[in-house]
């Protein structure tokens, strides 16, 4: 979230108004430049400047003061107040103002906004929406535009705008806290929302960040010492781990084709793993896994060619597995562009191989894939595609693989594979708790709740699924939205 300290300029001085009332002026400093410089020293990267006279009279009247700040300080400055013409905008943006803020013109000059967005780009144009009792105000908050908030949000989106400043006028300048309920409604518009008005404690800032607002403009609270800007900025830098949980579509490959039916209308060829990989990576997949299910020596060469093609076409990480038995196999897959390799049966047959592979290529690219099947109170490790029970205990085996240098574990449940009845949560939790390397859940995903359970109860770091995605039972973004709503950190 952007922390944007505010400077309002009136008659060349740095002031604050209360609720936009020009008769309730508090002067804070004679020189706005010194204030901006101080903000920068405290760690600010952004600055919000309003020309209050400009807003009142409809033309920019404190341009020199503003430009001094923009030119001398390396800050991302957004400027508003009195910008009414294309030339006003061109001059400011041309001189290094990061973005301009328009308010009243939404109602008086829609063509101007359209033209500005087209010429300068949507990231340069911010619309300020100032609301009093559900109605949008204009002309320095003094006039009711007679438009409701909802209708203005729709209009603004239709104009191609992506960022707005939302000010609840009643909250502004009286340190009473922002109007959180109203802000939640505004966020539903899908626009990037910068909140202004009433932010008066670090707690308010934290809450806004939690809500997912894009930025917050803080004025009076800084001037009055209610918010320590430096502390606020450092707190805003993720206070807890931001690592997201990963969603990983898996593709089984046979003779360079994806097997396990794939059901997509919008792909030219749903059986082509390259097409499918592109589709998933463009639609929110965090990683991809490819398993060569034939894994015969004759097929190796075509597999390398396929891996090369995949790596040229996507730019998210991917893992390739199936039939890996030598360091040369690994080297060739990595050189073809794979980021990691998954080793299954051979990790059981020759565990020392994992140690050698981790030493040569680094743990980060060695994934051990475990096929486990429940047997009364324990899970046995199977090999050869689930045909042979090794009688090894899956939990102990997982720990051993970590010890030998595996960087991640991919945990399959033979009981759940293909059943769509949910992951084997107990197996996942037991392994996740036993090791200190990331664990990827596999086998059994049938709906979005299964993913949530895998993360919350199975304590895994990533969840893999195949048919649920191939058959379009759900989409990655749908799952991620659901997880996000349930407080799981995901990359949206």
């Amino acid at each position, binding site marked *: *979230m*952007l922390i944007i300290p505010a400077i309002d300029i009136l008659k060349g001085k740095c002031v604050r108004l209360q609720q936009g009332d020009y008769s309730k002026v508090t002067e804070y400093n004679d020189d706005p430049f010194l204030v901006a410089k101080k903000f920068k020293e405290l*760690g600010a*990267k952004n600055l919000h400047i309003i020309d209050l006279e400009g807003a009142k009279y409809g033309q920019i009247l404190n341009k020199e003061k503003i430009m001094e700040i923009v030119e001398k300080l*390396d*800050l*991302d400055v957004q400027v508003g107040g009195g910008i009414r013409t294309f030339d006003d905008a061109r001059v400011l943006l041309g001189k290094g103002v990061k973005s301009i803020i328009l308010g009243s013109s939404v109602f008086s000059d829609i063509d101007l906004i359209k033209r500005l967005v087209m010429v300068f780009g949507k*990231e340069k144009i911010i619309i300020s929406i100032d609301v009093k009792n559900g109605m949008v105000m204009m002309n320095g908050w003094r006039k009711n535009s007679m438009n409701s908030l909802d209708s203005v949000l729709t209009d603004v989106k239709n104009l191609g705008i992506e960022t707005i400043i939302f000010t609840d006028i009643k909250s502004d300048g009286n340190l009473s806290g922002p109007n959180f309920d109203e802000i939640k409604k505004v966020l539903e518009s899908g626009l990037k929302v910068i909140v202004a008005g009433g932010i008066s404690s670090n707690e308010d800032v934290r809450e806004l960040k939690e809500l997912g607002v894009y930025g917050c403009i803080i004025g009076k609270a800084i001037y009055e010492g209610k918010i320590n800007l430096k502390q606020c900025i450092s707190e*805003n*830098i*993720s*206070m*807890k*781990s*931001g*690592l*997201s*949980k*990963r969603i990983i579509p898996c593709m089984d490959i046979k003779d360079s084709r994806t097997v396990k039916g794939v059901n997509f209308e919008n792909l030219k060829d749903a059986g082509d793993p390259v097409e499918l990989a592109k589709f998933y*990576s463009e639609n929110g997949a*965090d990683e991809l896994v490819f398993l060569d299910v034939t894994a015969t020596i004759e097929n190796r060469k075509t597999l390398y060619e396929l891996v090369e093609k995949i*790596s*040229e076409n996507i*730019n*998210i*990480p991917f893992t390739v597995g199936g039939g890996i038995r030598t360091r040369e196999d690994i080297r060739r897959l*990595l*050189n*073809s*562009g794979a*980021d990691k390799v998954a080793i299954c049966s051979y990790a059981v047959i020759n565990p020392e191989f994992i140690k050698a592979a981790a030493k040569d290529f*680094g*743990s*980060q*690219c060695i994934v051990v894939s475990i096929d486990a099947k429940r047997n009364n109170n324990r899970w046995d490790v199977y090999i050869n595609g689930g045909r042979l029970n090794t009688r090894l205990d899956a939990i102990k085996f997982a720990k051993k693989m970590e010890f030998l240098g595996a*960087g*991640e574990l991919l945990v399959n449940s033979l009981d759940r594979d293909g059943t769509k009845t949910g992951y084997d949560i107990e197996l996942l939790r037991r392994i996740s708790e036993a090791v*200190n*390397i*990331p664990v990827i859940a596999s086998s059994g995903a049938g709906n979005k709740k299964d993913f949530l359970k895998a993360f919350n109860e199975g304590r895994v*770091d*990533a969840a893999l699924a195949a048919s649920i995605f191939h058959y379009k039972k759900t989409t990655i973004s749908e799952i991620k939205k659901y997880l996000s709503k349930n407080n799981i950190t995901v*990359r949206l």
Partner: protein
Amino acid sequence: MIQIIDYGAGNIKSITNALKKLDENYAVITSPSQIRGDAKIIFPGVGAAGNAMDRLKENGFIEAIPRLKNMFLGICLGMQLLTEFSEEGMVKCLGIIKGKVDKFKNTPKVPQIGWNKVSFIKNDPLFNNIPDDSYFYFVNSYYVNADENYALGKTNYGDLFTSVVRNRNFYGVQFHPEKSAEIGLNLLNNFCKLC
């Protein structure tokens, strides 16, 4: 022109793939004598710091790199090697960025694998058109603990660490922009377009 230093520490294929997507001319170089004055340099790397420093020494890069005036981007281990010292193998590094490399301490799982947020500390042309707190793909067990003056971006994985650094023409990023979807390509593109 982009030149990629190949000193035998890790795979450069995904970087060349990304540069191809950006339509950038590139060449892979293995010796300092190949460095062109007008090129921007990408310095990748995965694996252990000690081993990588040994290889840089063999190839003569240890003396050459700190003297470069070229725009320079260290990625992952390539970023860590720009600091003064790495706890991984207790090895002296290139000393371009004031700071050292530490092992994660307050994290449940090492290595960190996956997408994490980068919070910008300073504005920089490297971040053009990239929103603050964007996700990038990380794979690391160690992290850079840099002097605040050099930090451009930070990330939290239990420990708060410096994920983007800069000193003059030298940049470093802990994440893999070449594996970080569109946003990563944007960052690489910004680097390629720096003057």
